[in-house]
């Protein structure tokens, strides 16, 4: 599979874990892969972005704006911010929940009311689904479930990759979140 995927959200939402699972899975499925992360300061509630490049022979660890196949956004403002990475027909998977950044909390800026149009959009309240599965922290795996409905990789391969990368104590919740994400993805695709 050849796919350039941008994962964005807010520090602390489990973005690095998601990209790690995707990287692990790509390798298991026989593809080359590069994942680019930034650690440190950006994890303190700031915007976080990781690049996941899957293909036969990946060179640059970074995705060029306008060339991504897919953006997975854990938060709505971050979805809007990352949309410019997508190519024309690129798809967006976005959690509709809002997390207010400090300039908005302080009243210095307004949370944007923009919509995302003109491209395949899979928008859902992933936080509600994660809570129903038993943990608000499983938003990332819900969205991974949605993504799985857009790839040809088998779902049990995703589940094995999740199992290999999450803490054993959280495995059941995460597998439930993945399943719920798959269902949400299937129904959004119609």
């Amino acid at each position, binding site marked *: 599979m050849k796919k350039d995927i941008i994962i964005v959200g807010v520090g602390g939402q489990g973005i690095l874990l998601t990209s790690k699972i995707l990287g692990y899975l790509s390798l298991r499925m026989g593809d080359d*892969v590069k994942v680019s992360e*930034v650690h*440190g300061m950006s994890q303190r509630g700031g915007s976080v972005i990781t690049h996941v490049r899957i293909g036969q022979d990946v060179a640059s660890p970074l995705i060029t*704006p306008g060339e991504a196949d897919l953006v997975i956004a854990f938060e709505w403002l971050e979805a809007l911010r990352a949309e410019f990475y997508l190519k024309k027909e690129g798809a967006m998977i976005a959690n509709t929940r809002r997390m207010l*950044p400090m300039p908005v*909390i302080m009243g210095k800026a307004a949370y944007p009311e923009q919509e995302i149009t003109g491209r395949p959009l899979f928008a859902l309240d992933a936080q509600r689904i994660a809570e129903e599965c038993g943990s608000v922290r499983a938003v990332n795996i819900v969205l991974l479930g949605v993504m799985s409905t857009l790839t040809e990789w088998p779902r049990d391969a995703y589940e094995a990759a999740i199992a290999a990368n999450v803490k054993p104590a959280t495995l059941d919740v995460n597998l439930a979140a993945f399943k719920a994400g798959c269902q949400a993805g299937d129904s959004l695709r119609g």
Partner: protein
Amino acid sequence: MKKLMLGNEAVARGAYEAGVRVVSSYPGTPSTEITEFSAAYKEINCEWAPNEKVAVETAFGAAMCGVRAMSCMKHVGLNVAADPLYTAAYTGVNGGLVLCVADDPFMHSSQNEQDTRFIARAAHVPVIEPADSQECKDFIRRAFEISERYDTPVILRLTTRLAHQRSPVETAERQEQPVKPYEKNIMKNVMMPGMARKRHVYVESREAQMEKDAAALGLNRLEMRGRALGVVCAGVVYQYVREALPEASVLKLGLSYPMDKAAIRDFAAQVDRLIVIEELEGIMEQEIAAMGIAVEGKKYTGRQGELSVQRIREAFGGEKAPEEPALPARPPVLCPGCPHRATFHVLKKLKLHVFGDIGCYTLCALPPIDSLESALCMGASIGMAVGAEKARGRDFARQSVAVLGDSTFVHSGITGLVNAVYDRSNITVVILDNRITGMTGHQQNPATGFDIYNQPAPQLNLEGLCESIGAHVVIENPMDMDALEKVIKEELNRDGVSVIIARYPCALLDKRRPIPARVTGCRNCGACMGLGCPAIERDAGGVHINAALCNGCGLCVSQCHFGAISCGGDRT
């Protein structure tokens, strides 16, 4: 079976396979994980040293005594370790000695964009630059071989996009290295002028020899395609060049210093136009130009920030990529429950000038707290406060504090404090003692009482140390903001040097499930908003607590004049 590895993880794996026995480092993004992954190998004796200078001295001592040793740091850490490095280049090593130094172009989490390749040239030590995780693993092994063969420390230079990239790695078994004999050799290991003059001759001849041997070392690679354009590059930039300029011929330098001048001359003769594409400074370009070869580079790519496929494409006439839209920024913030928030709320209330250094609390320069007024380097705040009093007098000193963390105090604040007392200064120092090295992701330090393996270790007594230096010391819990305010006022008016240890653990150390605060009857006065807590949100109806973020610390309870916020469970 290949394994997906972080570049830093691959460096650690390569060190393990190369038979490394000692790793001593101080954490610094983006280098930290090399040492953390090294600690997972029981064959390697790892430690968090109090600073990079001590770390390199420790690694040097181990190498001098016959084993392979490594020290890892970020670019600015090499400034601290520059002193031992420059002279270790003269003495040489015995067992291999490699410094893994991670530069941070674009300053994702750094205070400057300095280029380690300059220091390497100044110290006359070779630089090896891998281009992906596999090369991180393969090249560190080669770095140790070169270190021993040429009797020199070697720098393995990483950048953020290498250190923090995950890509496939083929692993191998560890090759145990015999401990080399240690021989007393004063002429080699004591750098007094008479010995150093002789060793300096060796340094030059070693460098010339390495340049001659560069091709045989096999770290460089020539990829001939067209004649029209030839690109010289190293590190992760090679990956960008491959995609941005697929028609170009490429000379990829794994050994970027000393450069293989013969190979560069040959390459230049085989292409119509020679370009160097390098991140940060135009070092290779200048060296090639000095060889009398027509070459360009920085005029296209600039000195600042990270390179990328699109930046190289655009520099050479390609189409412009779309730009990020203008949307409200999301700057990093102190975590909910962070004790620094309490301390800085008090410092802001007292309208003090706050001299700072490097840590999570550097974020207190940003609104709404915006009270940290300076940040230069680790431990610098104490010296700045001493200088401020010299410049502006005692009254100004009464309106100023120096802040630094527990880890940065141990790193390089202690000598500043010694000077402040010795200098008869009248300054107030606040040690933000959150019981951990926080910003780099929770590393132990001498004041935490635990070592890198999370085993109990002799604990540095911060208060006893400061008292012995001659400071007046007070310990206060910053989460009790009234008590902290009282203490700070008292100490500001005290003659001499005062140290207030604001002691409360990092919010992320407390793994208990928090009980979120609740709001009833909010009058929407906004008093609690000044805390800059990301868990407090406000709209026309008043403030709301985001229960998913709230840590239940209760700071907001103390800010409400109307008793509208309550917090269940006493966590202090």
